[in-house]
């Protein structure tokens, strides 16, 4: 280390960490080397299980009881964290390093008022109680909490997730740390809230010139936030360098594959299949000789399989741990470019599924929650309807009503192929039941873990297709071939399969009875990026082959855009906008849609000017009067918004929205193609 320059905010030197599980040490980090200079923001990106969070824990010497640093060093401000005695460590934590985690609700002490918790930070630094409280109030103001005094006396559970995270950030930045570690700080938050938190972090970081270690699985978030990026794969840093360089010109096959997997903004299924990374992550603690990525790498040769590639320093401060880094950008694509035509919707026929004035309220009396209010939609054969909205918008309730898992309120009408649907699954015709199936978000819970895959699928075939014996066996094989599973996946239990394979089984179950409509409830959000692409491909292929219709729910607008033909935007249980995907994305669109779109971080970096939404999502128990969005609407006109409920009006054929604004005052109205253009770039 050069003595003249100030020490790095954080440096990891050959860091090895292992966890002891069932009596054996499992290596999770292997020889990790990286440094974060003072004031620099460094992004650490990788799929689940790659050891991202362990880096943060090791750096702060807060590994769980079964974990230990088995080699290397971690230095913060030039001091070896592992060598510090307890008092020094405490001083380091009090003065130099702070941390923000994924779940703010858990990070706050549930039995202590917010004010006390924030004030503690100052007390540690030596402020007397009263002064500390005063400083705490000021700090809460800095994280843009509107009424710090009232928040101070509240308890964590009385705050929303976004507010909680602001409090955590306030505590973290209060000490003006030299290093701030952010571990998935916005995961689990709604897109609009996420964008706001990210803005806040970005602003304060610059203000305090704090170095940041930003850990995330979300490439888009990292791209927008960090100066430099490290890509972690199975506990190893495979590539590292300036953000722009990495995202635009990756030099490791893994990074290349990862970036290609993402459905870029504006891309749809009609434009072809997504690229994928074959295989899956090695298990934690696996003993691997050679390059850790070799089993999944198209470029891998004998050298890769025999020799662990050393990190290679490239130009402009980049490092790639690949024997063939120079060939990485030319990595062959795995997906054949073949693509069928988009579905032709025969508007004259009966829609396969139609919802008329569907509502659902829970509870009763004073605390009635209106989860869904008066939603009318139709779905045509072979098309995908994307359902979009933040948490609490009623997406899932709507899906459950379609499936018959939740009974709608009286007056609601659901039809399949023009025939009325009973409200509960068990009341429905067997034919109706098998026509309506679902692919759940989490394949771990959607598959009965006690069963062999063979039995799971057989049972579904028996119940939904009414098959038995040889016929069923035949269909079983046809079905697993359809979802690209092999014979050897049949005689195992779900937990022996990776997430992607499990989701394929779930898809097989849904398709056992030749369904007409499949509800896909965030089918890829529990999956890693590399797996997500394969599943999206499969869904699109199946739709093309079988003319099945999807109701596709996702918070990831990129994914929704990719798969959907039409999109419905929900807010507080109301349908705000409904129309062809392209039209909804490109505009003119509803102010809420506009805000949602603007909040999406993208790997291309440089988000379009974000449209900030004020305040919190209102409680569905007491929805605002008039237009329910008026409390947060950036384009609110005035009293009319608070008074009158806007009608759903058609602004273009098949494209309707619910807003008092004049058509050409709507976002995207001026440059219909601009948004799409910008994002495709």
């Amino acid at each position, binding site marked *: 280390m050069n003595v003249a320059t100030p020490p790095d905010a954080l440096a990891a030197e050959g860091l090895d960490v292992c966890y002891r599980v069932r009596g054996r040490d499992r290596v999770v980090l292997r020889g990790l080397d990286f440094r974060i200079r003072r004031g620099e923001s460094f992004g650490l990106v990788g799929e689940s299980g790659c050891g991202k969070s362990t880096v943060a824990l090791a750096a*702060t010497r*807060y590994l*769980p*009881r079964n974990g230990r640093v088995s080699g290397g060093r971690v230095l913060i401000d030039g001091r070896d964290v592992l060598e510090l005695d*307890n008092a020094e460590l*405490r*001083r*380091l*934590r*009090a*003065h130099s*390093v*702070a*941390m923000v*985690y994924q*779940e703010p609700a*858990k*990070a*706050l*002490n*549930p*039995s*202590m*008022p917010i004010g006390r*918790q924030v004030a*503690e*930070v100052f007390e*540690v630094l030596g402020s007397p109680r009263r002064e500390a409280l005063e400083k705490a109030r000021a700090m809460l103001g800095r994280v843009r909490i509107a009424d710090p005094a009232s928040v101070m006396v*509240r*308890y964590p*559970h*009385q*705050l*929303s997730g976004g507010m909680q995270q602001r409090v*955590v950030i306030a*505590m973290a930045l209060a000490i003006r740390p030299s290093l701030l570690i952010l571990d998935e700080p916005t995961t689990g938050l709604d897109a609009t809230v996420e964008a706001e938190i990210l803005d806040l972090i970005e602003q304060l970081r610059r203000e305090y010139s704090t170095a940041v270690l930003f850990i995330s699985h979300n490439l888009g978030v990292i791209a927008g936030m960090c100066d430099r990026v490290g890509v972690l794969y199975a506990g190893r840093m495979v590539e590292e360098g300036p953000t722009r360089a990495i995202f635009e010109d990756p030099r490791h096959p893994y990074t290349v594959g990862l970036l290609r997997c993402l459905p870029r903004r504006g891309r749809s299924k009609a434009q072809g299949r997504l690229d994928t990374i074959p295989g899956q992550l090695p298990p934690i603690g696996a003993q691997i000789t050679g390059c850790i990525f070799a089993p999944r790498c198209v470029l891998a040769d004998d050298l890769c399989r025999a020799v662990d590639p050393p990190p290679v320093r490239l130009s402009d401060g980049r490092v790639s741990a690949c024997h063939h880094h120079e060939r990485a950008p030319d990595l062959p694509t795995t997906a054949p470019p073949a693509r069928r035509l988009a579905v032709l919707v025969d508007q004259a026929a009966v829609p396969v599924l139609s919802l008329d004035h569907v509502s659902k309220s829970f509870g009763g009396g004073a605390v009635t929650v209106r989860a869904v209010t008066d939603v009318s939609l139709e779905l045509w054969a072979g098309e995908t309807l994307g359902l979009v909205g933040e948490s609490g918008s009623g997406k899932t309730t709507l899906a459950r009503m379609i499936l018959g898992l939740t009974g709608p309120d009286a007056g609601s009408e659901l039809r399949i192929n023009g025939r009325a649907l009973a409200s509960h699954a068990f009341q429905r015709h067997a034919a109706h039941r098998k026509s309506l199936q679902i692919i759940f978000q989490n394949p771990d819970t959607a598959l009965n873990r006690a069963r062999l895959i063979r039995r799971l699928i057989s049972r579904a075939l028996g119940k939904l297709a009414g098959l038995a014996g040889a016929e069923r066996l035949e269909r079983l094989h046809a079905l697993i071939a359809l979802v690209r599973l092999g014979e050897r996946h049949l005689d195992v239990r779900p937990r022996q399969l990776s997430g992607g394979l499990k989701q394929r089984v779930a898809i097989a179950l849904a398709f056992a009875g030749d369904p007409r409509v499949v509800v896909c409830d965030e089918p890829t959000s529990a999956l890693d990026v590399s797996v997500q692409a394969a599943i999206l491909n499969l869904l699109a292929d199946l739709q093309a082959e079988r003319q099945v219709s999807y109701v596709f729910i996702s918070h990831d607008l990129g994914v929704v855009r990719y798969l959907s033909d039409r999109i419905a935007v929900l807010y507080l249980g109301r349908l705000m906008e409904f129309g062809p995907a392209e039209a909804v994305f490109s505009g003119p669109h509803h102010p809420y849609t506009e805000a949602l779109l603007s909040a999406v971080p993208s790997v291309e970096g440089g988000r379009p000017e974000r449209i900030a939404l004020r305040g919190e999502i209102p*409680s569905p128990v007491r929805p605002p009067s008039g237009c329910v969005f008026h409390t947060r609407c950036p384009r609110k006109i005035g009293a009319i918004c608070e008074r009158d409920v806007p009608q759903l009006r058609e602004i273009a054929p098949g494209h309707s929205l619910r807003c008092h604004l004049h058509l050409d005052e709507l976002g995207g109205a001026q440059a219909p193609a601009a948004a799409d253009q910008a994002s495709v770039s």
Partner: protein
Amino acid sequence: MSGLRFVLRRVALSLVTLWLLSVIVFLGAQVLPGDVGRAILGPLADPRAVAALDHKLGVDRPLLVQYWDWSSHFVTGDMGRSLVYRQPVGPFLAAALANSLKLAAIAFLLVVPLGIFGGVVAAMNVGRALDRIITVTGLSMTVVPEFVSSIVLILIFGVWLEWLPVSASWREGAGAFTQFRHLLLPAVPLVLVLFGYIARMARAGTVEALDADYTRTAVMKGLPFRTVVWRHVLPNALLPTITVIATQMGYLIGGLVVVETVFHYQGIGSLIYNAAKAKDFPMLESGVLMIGVVYTIATLIADVLYSLLNPRIRFGGRE
């Protein structure tokens, strides 16, 4: 507001539970063998005398009439008269309950601090030898029946060392210290049984709190370890333990049967036992309900305490 409603709801539910309990006990009492008349007059009594006595006591009336008769008085606070002793049940019950409470209180005062301390110490040393020692001994003591530990204690402290009296009964009018000396030995088996429970809960709560993100937050603030423990870990860790302790109070009051038998102590356990044997329905019903009431009150106190200490319930959800 929401807190009060919560307590009221709990009370209402408890009343339903107690009513159900009274019905169960009443129906159960009907299948008890023999009858009151014979229990009083002795096994060899003339059947005519037995019939006459049963009639006099009213136990030959239809079940519903008997139940109505008892319950309509009970709700007015009149627990009826013991069929066997032909005296109001109240004083018997009060005396027995007072005895049991005395014993339970001593056991309680000993075990609660010990159990919490043991659990917290184990949790602080989780995974180490001390933790295993506390957990395994606590666990082992919890499952050893009271009569076994009682006997070992009697042998050691009563018979060999002659430090403590082996019977829980003392002369009328004995002083508090004498009573305490007599109750010490009977209290220890209860302490042993409860120690494991409480220590386990306290340990689990503490371990969970130690592993919690908010504790990490506190540690990362650079707070001294002691502050972290006292301010952040323990208040959250011991919250669930309170509920356990209170439910164990219910156990203590009623589960004294064995200890009361071993140490010849006239508590609520022996009252119920004898009432059941003599088929003394008003006494049995009142005794059982009294245990139910004590248990209910204990859990109620626990719930209230829990909600008072837990802001999540105190302040309800966010708006």
